[in-house]
């Protein structure tokens, strides 16, 4: 089972932290800090795997991937396959990329709840739910469609979309 998913930026700030087994806030911080401590000291061109037992206790492994300014970290136990987890990170990031069109750290920060939505479509209760990024995207889009439909209060006025295009042409 997957124990935790973390996204940490290269300066050690958490961007997403999801623990599939409850951890108190202080413990979460401690875990994030120690994971960052290990990751930041890793050289380039080494393996993406880490022995996480000293941080997360017995029977835990850690796989991470470094994209631009972010570390994506999955923590899991021996019932998962390391290489497969590495691909799951890839799925997650690919989906985010499709979601946000050239995803960057800022998207991750500002769309905190959407990030969780995406993740929940990939990992469910610590198990891999879906590995096709198109399928995940479909599910996420369906949710946001229904959300906007069921949203009584329109969050973004119609006219705004034309504004938006204006700003992008500036």
């Amino acid at each position: 089972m997957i124990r935790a998913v973390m996204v940490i930026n290269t300066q050690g700030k958490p961007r997403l932290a999801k623990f599939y087994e409850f951890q108190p806030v202080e413990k979460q911080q401690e875990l994030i800090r120690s994971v960052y401590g290990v990751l930041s000291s890793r050289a380039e061109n080494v393996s993406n795997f880490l022995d996480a037992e000293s941080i997360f206790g017995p029977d835990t492994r850690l796989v991470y991937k470094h994209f631009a300014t972010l570390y994506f970290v999955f923590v899991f136990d021996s019932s998962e396959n390391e290489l497969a987890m590495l691909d799951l990170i890839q799925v997650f990031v690919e989906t985010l990329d499709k979601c946000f069109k050239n995803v960057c750290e800022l998207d991750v920060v500002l769309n905190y709840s959407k990030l969780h939505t995406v993740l929940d479509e990939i990992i469910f209760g610590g198990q891999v739910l879906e590995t096709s990024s198109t399928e995940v995207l479909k599910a996420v889009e369906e949710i946001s469609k229904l959300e906007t439909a069921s949203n009584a209060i329109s969050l973004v006025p119609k006219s705004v979309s034309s504004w938006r295009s204006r700003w992008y042409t500036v």
Partner: protein
Amino acid sequence: MEQLKTIGRELAMGSQGGFGQSKEFLDLVKSIGEARSKAEEERIVLHEIETLKRRLSEPDIPKRKMKEYIIRLVYVEMLGHDASFAYIHAVKMTHDDNLVLKRTGYLAVSLFLNDDHDLIILIVNTIQKDLKSDNYLVVCTALNAVCKLINDETVPAVLPQVVELLGHQKEAVRKKAIMALHRFYQKSPSSVSHLVSNFRKRLCDNDPGVMGATLCPLFDLITIDVNTYKDLVVSFVSILKQVAERRLPKTYDYHQLPAPFIQIRLLKILALLGSGDKQSSEKMYMVVGDIFKKCDSTSNIGNAVLYECICCVSAIHPNPKLLEQAAQVISRFLKSDSHNLKYMGIDALGRLIKISPEIAEQHQLAVIDCLEDPDDTLKRKTFELLYKMTKSSNVEVIVDRMIDYMISLNDNHYKTYIASRCVELAEQFAPSNQWFIQTMNKVFEHAGDLVNVKVAHNLMKLIAEGFGEDDDTADSQLRSSAVESYLRIIGEPKLPSVFLQVICWVLGEYGTADGKYSASYITGKLCDVAEAYSNDETVKAYAVTAIMKIYAFEISSGRKVDMLPECQSLVEELSASHSTDLQQRAYELQAVIGIDAHAIESIMPSDASCEDIEIDKNLSFLNGYVQQAIEKGAQPYISENERSGVSSINNFRSQDQHEALSHSLRFEAYELPKPLVPSRVPPAAVASSTELVPVPEPSYARETHQSASLPSVSDAGSSELKLRLDGVQKKWGRPTYSSSASSTSTSSSHKTTNGITQVDGVSTSNSKARDTYDLRKPSVEISPEKQKLASSLFGGPSRTEKRPSSGNHKVSKATEKSQVSKAAGAHTDAAVEKTNHEPTPDLLDFSDSTVTGTAPSIDPFQQLEGLLDQTEATSTVNNGPAGASKTPEIMGLYADTPVSGLSSSVGNPVLTNRDDFNLASELSNATRTSQVGVSQSNRGPNPKDSLEKDALVRQMGVTPTSQNPNLFRDLLG
């Protein structure tokens, strides 16, 4: 303009994410991003919390605002600040009818709350309602929350609804319901045990995704109880076959591979089901062999499946063809440039080596490369492998490597782990006592504070008892070498406490035993230790007792003792120590020096640490004394049971004891302590105090114990002395190291063989000779050190090369032994005896005294070849009639494999080269594509967008170091 950009961004976000965040949230993120220090960030977040608290207390907050506050709270809590004041608002939000708000509420709640939080009870009702909703998205959201929020107490409340959802028309819901049920099973197996059959049922679901989801709970169930699921082997095999043959819809393909995650899960399950079960395993051979052939080894996920195949092959009943295929994959992994694949290769090798130990030999250089790799993860994995392949022939090299690595480590967790590994290997495979002691010394020196105290006691025990052989000279040689090595080490600064305890004990017990060192020299060293580690009481205690022993041995051997001045001052200092234990030891020392040789002989017999100590629990030797006291008017002893009922006991001592025993809070006032005069203590009290102490007395070392209780058995004169000491010590002695282990063991149970140290001498010179021989060997491109290491680890790079030299340079322990038996001649039957604890049974063949020079050169290789022949023979049998009678067409298919296997091995070099190239290009493109990304940014689909994004990023201060607008371009390939 800057401002406008931000707003534009905000609005864009709004349309993308389905919600908009206010400027406040953006400002928060921005200011945190720009915070120069942790303190500044702290201040900003605390300010944010204050703001949110204030806002939340306002009446009639619009829902949209509320939602944003909740998201901000989640954010704040992620940064490590308590947001519990707002949990209730998140709970309230789950009740909302609006899907956006409900989802936000559930998200926040499942991040905030533990499953035993008080507020959960307020959500259960909502969850129940939502699980019944017509909108499947609501149902999914609720199912998601259920996984996190429901515990064994609340499972019954939602279980019926979840079970109902197993038949939902939407496959996404069915899938999630299965997984939720699995989560319930993980949290409280008993509550869903009656529903386990549902998992089996859902395995036949029409939707492959749902089927895949059931594999997770089934894997858990099978891990616990294999036998009840044996009937599913056929189903799993046929599912795997269908998946591998691409019968699933194209949408399940991932990187051109059919449903790899399902394949992995199935292979894991098959590994469990087939382990130790030949019949089940035979059903799997074909499909696993198929996957080996079909799997694309250029993609990461393809390699994941291949790795899982190896795991499966090594777990199930072995099949030589599959093992061969597995070995091929492993060699491809190990030859790869990717560290990830090397890591997997090493891991797989560790699995396969248990079944076919000879495959490690082909990869020895790759393994050594991994061992010397700068990547710590890989290095550790390689040590794991070495640990698995340690034998008595290579233990020295491996443990030396491990210790070197251990010394270089800073991580205490892993250091402890590897130290314990070293100890374990050394204890199991030590070629000689001397080596063992030296290794232990190194481990203690560098990780003494991290190893289990028991290891230290084992070491002391070993030195005291010898290695289980019956030869006193060997033992004493061992001891003197230990003493010598300790005298060398003792001067080094900052030794760990446990190690110093061992040193002091050994020096005290055997420091002067061989007459090489004078008593004053040893005691001087011991005094230095006590002085240098003056704040470690345990070490001081060990040192003082050791000094006492040295003096006692001196006196009993009739020599005159003059205490060194520093020793004198140490004793004086300790007799005024705050620690009663140290005080007692100091007084004991003074007392021992004062008495005559005869008395000392009986209280401190030299080299008696292995002797059994008989404890007279009834203290019958005190009877006379008790009688005398009672006659003088003392109260008779009241037994413990009688006493426990009585509340008013005048005797302060016995009450004190009683209290210590019951450990409960006492409510009545303490009596005033009476001045205690030892001789006037009622004997009954003393007796009780001794009896209440458990048999392995809670004193530091056994020797005090010995000095206390031994004489009382025999010597009437010293029993008085004993009483006095006992009265003081038993009450306060700290229960640290009780020597029960060594005191209960009998020295007679260990037999010693002759000439054990001679063995060492021969074997070391042998290995020397071998080393030089290896150095001279022509090496094409590999450095001689590496080759040397390889040969010492794996027993030579190739068998044929090894053979001519084998007469003298055998690595095998068996040969060394037999050479010794040649050299030692007369000791041959001793060698026979030694075979009892040697793992090499073939030694028996050489034990007769007619061993010739040719005999040793035959043994290991012939044996190996014999083994090989055997396996080959059995393998053909396996493939032959047994399999054929069952499933002829399977065997027919299987018969093809040798041909393909051959051809692939022929084309192997080319193939692997290509593979490597592809892998390398795919895996290392992160760096290359980032450059490409920069140059491409002009041609990109929406360069402005990207540039704008980047500018904003900089402006927000979130990613000041980034220079590449298309940050994730490399992903899209």
